[in-house]
């Protein structure tokens, strides 16, 4: 490798580290992203032009076309997509990266003279294929689940055992191919299919609420796949970049699990759906619900001193982030102190709600994180819960039999009045009843979040 390219890779690697570092602070995040992107561009251009290979023009042309096509498509998707679709988009892009790694592995398997190369090289190629395939099909599966294309949560007994036996068989085949220096393409394709099937099996039983964790985990896996291909080419920028994503992704995954008070194992092997049955019997003991109207809610808010808004995924689905900002501005104009309480896993991904509200120009300072807002609920006159459910379920505090027991929640029940906007009494993603709705301080404002909030805004405007 030429010195110039080595230096370019070195610079690119440093930009990745600096970029990731800066992405961790609100003030520097944007520049961090741009720095990393610039480094990536540098590495790509350097790879294409700096080498001592005799490359026919046709190949340069093909590379150029491929980059142009992919870049344009990627750009268009990124710019056009709605902010509510963000989690599935990340998943989709991640799947493409995984597929790319798998394809590289396939080509290199064909190139390498397996008999002559070392066993470690064969392992590297095969693991790139397997991990790449798993992330590809797994990410597509997660994407399908998040946008509702794939609905079924398959639960069959011994599912995990079947899954584990399957992946062990795939690994066993890879080991057999390595040990025996077998270069039959059929077996490689068998591995590829095995990886693809495992990706689907792996994500299939995991419920929608846990999808962010899965995406983060798959993201981390793609990093590892990239690092493995880096080993293959003895390419430092791929190696370090991949490992950085791999380890950062694992930490992020664990942080997300922690926010939901779950272990990674319980996410992967599932436990949420166990108690999904039987909510009907429970209703009777919880008491009755009280409904309210937009005008009653408006009056209550108009005379309040402190209002806290708890946004949830229902707000995102209804595209009500702009209306809620309007509501907040009107209330602020009337001298009401308004804040947003952001649960770490509100929406479908940590930070998802912040992005949505920021999109509608809500001031960053008004978004208060869970630990800071929880003591403030005691002073709140009205809490407006919009399309959130599990993150405000007191069962997390006082029902040890609940699957969400121990999950940190927003303590909205400490407020004087609670208004919950929901479309229906349907359970949230965890599939469990919420006793908050039956609390004597709670009134239910049924309806689509956007419609209900619009009514609320017009009522308030008339006051």
């Amino acid at each position, binding site marked *: 490798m030429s010195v110039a390219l080595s230096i370019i890779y070195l610079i690119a690697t440093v930009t990745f580290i600096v970029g*990731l570092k800066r992405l961790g602070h609100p003030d520097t995040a944007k520049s961090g992203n*741009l720095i990393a992107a610039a480094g990536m561009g540098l*590495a790509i251009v350097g790879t294409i032009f700096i080498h001592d290979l005799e490359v026919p023009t046709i190949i340069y042309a093909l590379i150029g076309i491929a980059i142009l096509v992919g870049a344009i498509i990627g750009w268009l998707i*990124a710019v056009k997509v709605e902010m509510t679709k963000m989690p599935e988009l990340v998943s989709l892009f991640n799947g493409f990266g995984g597929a790319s790694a798998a394809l590289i592995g396939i*080509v290199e398997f064909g190139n390498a003279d397996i008999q002559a190369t070392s066993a470690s090289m064969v392992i590297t190629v095969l693991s790139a294929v397997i991990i790449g395939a798993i992330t590809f099909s797994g990410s597509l599966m997660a994407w399908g689940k998040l946008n509702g294309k794939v609905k079924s949560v398959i639960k069959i007994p011994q599912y995990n055992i079947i899954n584990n036996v399957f992946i062990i068989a795939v690994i066993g085949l890879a080991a057999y191919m390595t040990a025996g220096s077998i270069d039959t393409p059929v077996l490689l394709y068998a591995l590829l299919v095995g990886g693809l099937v495992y990706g689907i099996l792996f994500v299939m039983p995991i419920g929608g609420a846990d999808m962010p964790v899965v995406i983060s985990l798959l993201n981390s896996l793609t990093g590892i796949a990239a690092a493995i291909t880096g080993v293959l080419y003895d390419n430092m920028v791929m190696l370090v970049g991949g490992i950085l994503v791999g380890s950062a992704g694992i930490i992020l995954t664990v942080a997300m699990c922690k926010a939901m008070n779950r272990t990674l194992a319980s996410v992967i092997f599932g436990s949420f759906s166990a108690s999904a049955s039987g909510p009907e019997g429970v209703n009777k003991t919880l008491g009755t619900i009280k409904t309210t109207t937009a005008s009653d809610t408006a009056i209550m808010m108009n005379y309040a001193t402190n209002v806290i808004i708890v946004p949830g995924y229902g707000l995102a689905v209804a595209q009500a982030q702009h209306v809620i900002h309007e509501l907040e501005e009107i209330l602020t104009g009337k001298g009401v102190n308004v804040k947003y309480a952001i649960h770490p896993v509100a929406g479908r991904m940590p930070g998802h709600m912040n992005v949505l509200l920021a999109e509608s120009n809500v001031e960053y300072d008004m978004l208060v994180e869970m630990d800071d807002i929880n003591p403030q609920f005691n002073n709140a006159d009205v809490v407006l819960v919009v399309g959130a459910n599990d993150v405000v379920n007191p069962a997390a505090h006082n029902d040890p039999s609940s699957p969400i027991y121990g999950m940190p929640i927003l303590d909205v029940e400490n407020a004087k009045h609670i208004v919950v906007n929901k479309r229906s009494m349907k359970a949230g993603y965890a599939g469990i009843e919420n006793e908050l709705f039956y609390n004597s301080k709670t009134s239910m404002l049924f309806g689509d979040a956007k419609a209900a909030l619009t009514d609320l805004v017009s009522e308030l405007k008339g006051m």
Partner: protein
Amino acid sequence: MQQIIEFINNNLQIVYIIILATFVGVELIKSIPAVLHTPLMSGANALSGVVIVGAILVMLHSNPTDYLALALGFVAVVLGILNVVGGFAVTNRMLEMFKKKK
């Protein structure tokens, strides 16, 4: 066992890099506000598109008559750059929205 030790010995530099980079990655992410988790995940996702470098190498090394390798390499480049450009663009779009109002 012998093989594992041999592998580590032959690739000592790589083993060092992997260990150090792992710790760097962990330290970088450790104390990040939940607010930034989504953009961060998206940014990290864009970085994993670095695999495109490998895809380009595949194409540079392939024989112009090896249509299978070229076709697979072509698709790998398209998917890799999709991951890179889409990832960074989406992250940028998210972060655009974090601007503080003065």
